[in-house]
């Protein structure tokens, strides 16, 4: 089965080609079936592979397809690596991907059949690139996938390309990602220079041989992290993700919540040894993650767009994952990637269902009371909120709690900030829930008349994801519960190389119970607080002032970037255009042309047509030549 792993990315690629080339000829239902079917088939194969990988004692296998780059001593094969980490990501990507494809067949039904096929073609191309990213057996292949998902993200954010704002959002995402990609690329070059290889096992072996006191490893680690900052929307490169909500909602669910943005976490988890060997960079990762988590959570408190709240929540949760990576809890980070993929995809799809019912309205101040119109969406959305808030028993509780307790082992201050973020998360999620589903309806009469539960193709993925959001946590139970942590056991071989270099922390069980109890109680109190404030929300139309206004305007980060980077850059470009391009290069080039023209006009006068004059000139010329010849002798 492992040898058939190439089928997993190949099937979505095929789907992309068929839908992309035949978009004028395929009917909507046919392109929907092709798009979803390709991913579903990939999911089935991934499941079979996962079952094989799950066996105890499974060794990572590399499937070589062909030589990709071969120059001098550098060999980069086009190869897929199947191990515990990539198999898990395969399941998440194809599984959530399938559900979102099914959801999209209904959500995108208002498109023309050509747009519909184009949408599925892009979505399949995205799945293909993402699979290449996680399956690649070396950093170059990872980079190919990395660029591929960036491209698809750009295409899908700007899917409704007739809207200039959406196009600008797409460009912003692409440019922000490009800044990060430069770091990643430089990291790869550093590896080639220092290790002579980009294949995972070789790089890790050589890095481990260099040990903890090498100057090279921190440089590579931070360059790779810059790449992760861009792709996974961390400070200072996170501003593209909230804008990326311009794309269709299923795209936000798949790309900007569940899969693509976790590529950075996958990359660092994959390169765990490099980060364990560079403790200073690891601390840096943790700090960036934590600051991003707090900042994004604080912004989410005051957003009124249902998708913007979820977007900032995603940024915040990604920050959480980086915090976990930074404190060396790689398994926990991957665990949170998984649970987050389920509950955040669920929340996004739920919000899509709401937007669908509201006829495109995204402002939660104009919603309310949707509970009685959309029972399935209501229940599943509530489950998603409970999961992300970390209410005991649901998946988010286990992963978030593991991150917090790992942080507590390393640094108490970080723990407090992390806990604060968790409380903010609970608050804004339930603010969102109560303003959307409870209270009374605040929209127009036509909207109220139009309200309906979404069709089965949309509610089915919601139900499946809700079940996963509840139960996915039980594969990663902490030791305190006396149960085996299945996920940690499963992923142990991937993170084994960094174990000898990692500092060992261990928490007393009592402390862990205490932390867990504390966070649970605080979260529940916060939820009730949010309930009492927003259960009967009335839109008073009052402008926010003071700090709330700063939060509503996202700490003015976009404005600051605009002032310190975009404006000076534009000014510089204008200067170059005026001073160097127009009056420098252009004038030089035009000057050459003009002087040749003027010169020819003067020389033309010599050609008088008087043969006598020509001969005279010839004789004079010869005499002059003779004189010169004599003089030079």
């Amino acid at each position: 089965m492992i040898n058939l792993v190439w089928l997993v990315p190949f099937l979505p690629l095929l789907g992309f080609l068929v839908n992309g080339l035949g978009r004028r000829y395929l009917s909507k239902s046919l392109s929907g079936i092709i798009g979803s079917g390709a991913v579903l088939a990939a999911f089935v194969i991934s499941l079979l592979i996962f079952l094989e990988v799950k066996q105890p004692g499974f060794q990572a296998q590399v499937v070589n397809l062909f030589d990709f780059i071969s120059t001098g001593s550098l060999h980069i094969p086009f190869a897929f690596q199947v191990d515990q980490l990539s198999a898990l990501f395969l399941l998440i990507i194809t599984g959530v991907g399938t559900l979102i494809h099914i959801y999209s067949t209904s959500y995108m039904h208002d498109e023309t059949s050509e747009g519909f096929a184009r949408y599925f073609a892009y979505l399949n191309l995205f799945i293909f690139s993402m699979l290449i990213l996680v399956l690649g057996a070396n950093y170059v292949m990872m980079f190919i996938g990395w660029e591929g998902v960036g491209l698809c993200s750009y295409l899908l954010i700007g899917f409704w390309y007739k809207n200039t704002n959406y196009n600008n959002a797409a460009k912003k995402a692409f440019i922000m990602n490009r800044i990060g990609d430069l770091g990643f690329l430089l990291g790869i070059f550093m590896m080639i220079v220092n290790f002579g290889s980009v294949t995972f096992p070789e790089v890790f072996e050589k890095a481990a041989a260099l040990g903890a006191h090498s100057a090279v490893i921190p440089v590579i680690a931070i360059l790779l992290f810059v790449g992760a900052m861009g792709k996974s929307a961390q400070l200072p490169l996170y501003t593209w993700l909230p804008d990326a909500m311009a794309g269709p909602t299923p795209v936000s669910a798949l790309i900007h919540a569940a899969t693509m943005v976790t590529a950075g976490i996958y990359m660092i988890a994959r390169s765990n040894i490099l980060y364990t060997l560079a403790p200073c960079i690891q601390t840096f990762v943790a700090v960036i993650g934590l600051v991003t988590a707090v900042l994004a959570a604080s912004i989410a408190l005051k957003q009124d767009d249902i998708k913007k709240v979820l977007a900032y929540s995603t940024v915040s949760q990604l920050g959480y994952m980086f915090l976990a990576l930074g404190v060396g809890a790689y398994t926990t980070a991957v665990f949170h990637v998984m649970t987050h993929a389920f509950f955040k995809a669920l929340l996004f799809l739920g919000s899509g269902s709401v937007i669908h019912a509201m006829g495109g309205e995204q402002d939660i101040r104009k919603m309310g009371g949707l509970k009685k119109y959309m029972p399935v969406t209501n229940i599943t959305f509530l489950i998603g909120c409970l999961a992300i808030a970390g209410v005991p028993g649901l998946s988010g509780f286990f992963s978030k709690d593991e991150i917090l307790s790992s942080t507590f082992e390393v640094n108490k201050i970080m723990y407090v900030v992390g806990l604060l973020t968790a409380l903010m998360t609970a608050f804004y999620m339930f603010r969102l829930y109560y303003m959307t589903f409870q209270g009374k309806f605040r929209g127009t009469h036509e909207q109220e008349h139009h309200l309906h539960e979404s069709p089965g193709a949309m509610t089915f993925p919601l139900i499946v994801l809700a079940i996963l959001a509840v139960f996915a946590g039980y594969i990663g139970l902490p030791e305190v519960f006396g149960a085996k942590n299945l996920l940690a056991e499963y992923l142990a071989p991937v993170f084994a190389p960094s174990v000898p270099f990692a500092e060992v922390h261990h928490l007393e069980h009592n402390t862990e119970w205490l932390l867990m109890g504390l966070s649970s109680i605080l979260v529940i109190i916060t939820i009730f607080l949010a309930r009492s404030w927003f259960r009967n929300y009335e839109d008073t139309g009052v402008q926010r002032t003071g700090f709330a206004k700063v939060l509503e305007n996202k700490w003015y980060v976009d404005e600051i970037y605009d002032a310190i980077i975009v404006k000076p850059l534009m000014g510089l470009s204008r200067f170059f255009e005026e001073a160097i391009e127009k009056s420098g290069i252009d004038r030089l080039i035009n000057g050459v042309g003009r002087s040749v023209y003027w010169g020819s006009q003067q020389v033309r006068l010599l050609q008088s047509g008087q043969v006598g004059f020509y001969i005279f000139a010839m004789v004079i010329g010869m005499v002059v030549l003779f004189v010169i010849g004599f003089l030079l002798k």
Partner: protein
Amino acid sequence: MPVQYYIFLSIALFCIGVMGVLMRRNAIIIFMCVELMLNAVNLLMVAFSKMWADAGRVDAGSAQIFVFFIMVVAAAEVAVGLAIIVMVYRNSHSVDINIMNRLKN
């Protein structure tokens, strides 16, 4: 006789030829001046040939071959040139070269 005499004579003939071509307007005279220049060169070649032969060079006679070449070319040229002049005269009843700049435009 020393070879310099021939050289000076040849230079004198050549300069007369050049000045004639530059100064005169009658096409026939110009033609004759061209012949004069060619023959100045011929004279020079014969003189040098003789000089080298006196110095004992075996291949000195080859210069005289060129003289024949030049004579043949000059004869052909005269044939063509006179024909042109005749045609010009027929058309314009004049052999003044200054009216021939009509070709200009």
